């Protein structure tokens, strides 16, 4: 449950940013609540470069990135086409 406490707020932010995501997951990589792996598959990424795709994820998580909630973030994104 501790794990979910850490990942749930991030998940909520990502669901808000990518409401039509086909796949969306947030994993607390170390169990420490500050190293995360985020995976998003969404049509929103179609036609965008990886840099642009990751920027959208960073944008969605700007607050927890800025306040230090996220110490380390690994991102995996994919379009649906």
């Amino acid at each position: 449950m501790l794990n979910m406490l850490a990942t749930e707020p991030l998940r909520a932010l990502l669901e808000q940013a990518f409401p039509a995501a086909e796949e969306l997951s947030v994993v607390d990589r170390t169990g420490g609540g500050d190293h995360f792996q985020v995976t998003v598959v969404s049509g929103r990424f179609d036609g965008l470069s990886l840099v642009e795709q990751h920027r959208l994820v960073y944008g969605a998580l700007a607050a927890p990135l800025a306040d230090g909630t996220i110490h380390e973030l690994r991102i995996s994104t994919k379009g649906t086409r």
Partner: protein
Amino acid sequence: MSELRTQIEQIVSSEPVALFMKGKPDFAMCGNSARALAALRSAGAPVTAIDVLPDPRIRQELSALSSWPTIPQVFIKGELIGGADIVQELAETGELERKLAEALGDDYRAPGSERVVALTAA
């Protein structure tokens, strides 16, 4: 514009491959920086490494310039390629080598060309 910002811009635009990392190539202070470096090395990239740790302003100026919030950051001929995840993904698919050849020419591999640049304004 700050002197530091100018220096960073100069490095980004003039170095064939610039890696802004935490620590130095022989002693990376962060797993993601080590991953990005390993991916670049696997593709034979002539890496110029810049340590962002000596001064927090380096990170601030760099991220303001690149609109990329995290370290490491990899640039090829001035273009932001991405952080550790993207560079690793591109290395695994062979896309990184293609990009390097396209930007720097087919003979971009220069063994022993890895170097470290320090920001003097920091």
